[in-house]
């Protein structure tokens, strides 16, 4: 630590070069942090103690096939099931097809038991349950479309020939989708379709997390030989199914990150090589006054690490600050609900900074530290 001042002075001697290198590393780490966070958000859907208890039962063939409403009672009787809620993806159009968000026609009786992680004022809950054509909307949708309690919402059916006329009765925050969807009464939907009597999926609340695998098995076993077989999985697995549809995003993002890391090593190595070359005489003097080779090496490496670590921290923290300040759902039309730069990702950023610092200064620092002082000092320059 006693050499910190020396490192600082050395870095600051060519202020412009240091700042440019710092900015370049910061920009790269900003990018890496953003990409890793995006990947993490995709791979790890929001987890709450409530969502860990939820299972989703769908038609075995695909989500495009619906389930009979009679299944609700059968699933409710399965051992370990605390509550069942049918819900149907409505997929309608609000004003324009580009206003995309989740719309579900959901059973109401067990709704707030199953979605206990949604924050809704009690009076609004009641108002929603009482109004057959009422709807419950997420707070990020409220931000996007400027809705308020009592507003009328007209949805145009795309999958179904039914255009619901809804009234906003309640607004929720949180939940598994961080306030990004709209829910309305399944009964109203069913009437609109002349009592067609089907739903899309069943959301099941398990008694305990431990029992989840057995419950899933029991539910599917009950319908194994029925005309409509089912597939039950945890809510997390269900959501990850959508991500896997996007293809190999993980490979794409990790390859981009490695290329970026390689690029910053080049930038930092260039800087350190220039800076060490300019100073070879000075390094000779340090050694002449008694600095050991290893100390010189350590000082040079430390200087490089200090530079890239600072750049990495600036970049990663900038990403963290920026994404927590921006209203992402509004800016990206609901495409991104949030980007939370976790401590784990910050740690990765720091590790990259450390590694880049060591690798980039490695060769020139080693050479400079091994060069006999006499040789350097003899040179006229």
């Amino acid at each position, binding site marked *: 630590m006693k050499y910190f001042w020396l490192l600082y002075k050395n870095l600051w001697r060519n202020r412009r070069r240091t700042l440019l290198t710092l900015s370049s590393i910061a920009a790269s780490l900003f990018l890496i942090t953003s990409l890793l966070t995006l990947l993490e958000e995709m791979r790890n859907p929001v987890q709450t103690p409530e969502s860990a208890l939820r299972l989703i039962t769908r038609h075995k*063939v695909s989500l495009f096939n619906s389930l009979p409403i009679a299944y609700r009672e059968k699933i409710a009787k399965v051992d370990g099931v605390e509550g069942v809620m049918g819900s149907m993806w409505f997929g309608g159009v609000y004003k324009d097809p580009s206003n995309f968000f989740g719309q579900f026609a959901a059973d109401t009786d067990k709704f707030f038991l199953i979605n206990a992680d949604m924050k809704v004022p009690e009076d609004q809950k009641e108002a929603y349950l009482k109004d057959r054509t009422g709807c419950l909307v997420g707070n990020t949708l409220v931000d996007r479309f400027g809705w308020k309690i009592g507003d009328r919402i007209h949805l145009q059916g795309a999958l179904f020939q039914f255009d619901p006329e809804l009234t906003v009765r309640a607004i929720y925050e949180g939940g598994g989708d961080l306030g990004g969807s709209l829910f309305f009464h399944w009964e109203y939907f069913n009437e609109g379709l002349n009592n067609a009597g089907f739903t899309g999926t069943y959301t099941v609340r398990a008694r305990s997390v431990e029992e989840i695998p057995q419950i899933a098995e029991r539910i599917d076993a009950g319908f194994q030989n029925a005309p409509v077989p089912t597939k039950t999985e945890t809510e997390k697995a269900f959501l990850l199914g959508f991500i896997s*549809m996007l293809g190999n995003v993980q490979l794409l993002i990790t390859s981009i990150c490695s290329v970026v890391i390689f690029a910053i090593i080049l*930038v930092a190595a260039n800087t350190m090589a220039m800076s060490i070359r300019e100073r070879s005489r000075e390094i000779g003097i340090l050694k002449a006054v008694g600095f050991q080779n290893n100390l010189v090496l350590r000082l040079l490496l430390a200087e490089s690490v200090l530079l890239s670590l600072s750049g990495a921290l600036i970049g990663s923290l900038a990403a963290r600050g920026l994404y927590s300040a921006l209203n992402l759902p509004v800016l990206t039309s609901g495409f991104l609900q949030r980007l939370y730069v976790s401590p784990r990702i910050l740690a990765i950023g720091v590790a990259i900074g450390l590694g880049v610092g060591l690798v980039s200064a490695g060769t020139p620092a080693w050479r400079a530290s091994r060069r006999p002082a006499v040789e350097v000092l003899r040179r006229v320059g």
Partner: protein
Amino acid sequence: MKIPLKYNVGSLWVRRVGTLMTALGIGLTVAIFIVMMALVQGLDSTFVETGRPNHLIVIRNGSLNETNSYFNRDLLQTVRLLPGIRPSSSGEPRAAGEILVVINHPRVTGEASNVIVRGTSPLGLELRPDLRLIEGRWFRRGLREVNVSRSLSRRFQNMGLGDTLHMSRSEWKVVGIFDAGGTAYDSEVLTDAEDVAQDWDRPIYTSLLLEAADAAAAQEITRRIADDRRIHLQAISQREYFRGQMVSSVGIKALGGFIALVMGVGSCFAAMNMMYAAVMSRTKEVGTLRALGFSRWSILTSFMVEAALLAVAGGSLGCLMALPIHGLSTGTANFITFSEILFNFRITPRILGEGMVFAVAVGLVGGLLPASRAARLRVIDALRD
């Protein structure tokens, strides 16, 4: 007076390690830019190249695409009899009723995705001239047989020739592999409409595909279908229909733009660093050039040219590094049909050009400040340095 280019090339060569590192840095940025653009291009051109203008897709009014449309089968008769449909060799109107279903099926890598299964007929196959059978034979009615595209058969489990595929209630045999010429139909399993209707218990059509005699007839048919309130259908040109699915690439486009922007900024700083170092180490040379009579403007252009050269070297490296991904097959989610769409990375000359422009822009922005600093040097100070 212009400073010769040779001078710049020589200067870059003198500091070749630094030059190479900076150029490589710019090259990597350009390579990533090209890869992302090739991804977008491949996906978009799949949709652009699917469909012919005089072919019409008829779906239920209000539904946005084939996967969420459905209507009574009788309507095929109503539509078939409209005037202006091109007759087939046997004199029948060329209009085929089709039923689309989606299965959730595991890829070779294990994770599952949605795949479109299209129930069609020999007439439906005939209406898609891009389809080419490359192995086996076409499906026959009543036998639960399917044809799979080559790309699908490579990407999904149990989709090779002779394999058996479990769908809905039956086992379906893969009797042939086809190639749809890089169109969106390369992402589909084709089989008989009747068999699908039975197995899925859906006695409906999801869409009709018909061929109008000419553009005017296509317009007339579209208008008639829209005006007939009883049938509640809409006709869309097959070409427009698939172009509408290009929104699937917006996510990749946005991500690619963001990555290119941030990496471009980072590379600008690196190029600036390099050019400042070049200017600083050549202060005396600049002074000499000025003393010889070269103007400030010549000095500025000379350094800008040098930065551009550095960037061109980087850009070319980037293009070379990106080229091997051309033609690589991949797939992602089609946002409209909510199922897998397969396509190839496609690097076009235009993308390479854009990559070079991007590189040169990075070089010029990075070179501007150092070059203007060099131009502003006073002869006397520079020579004394």
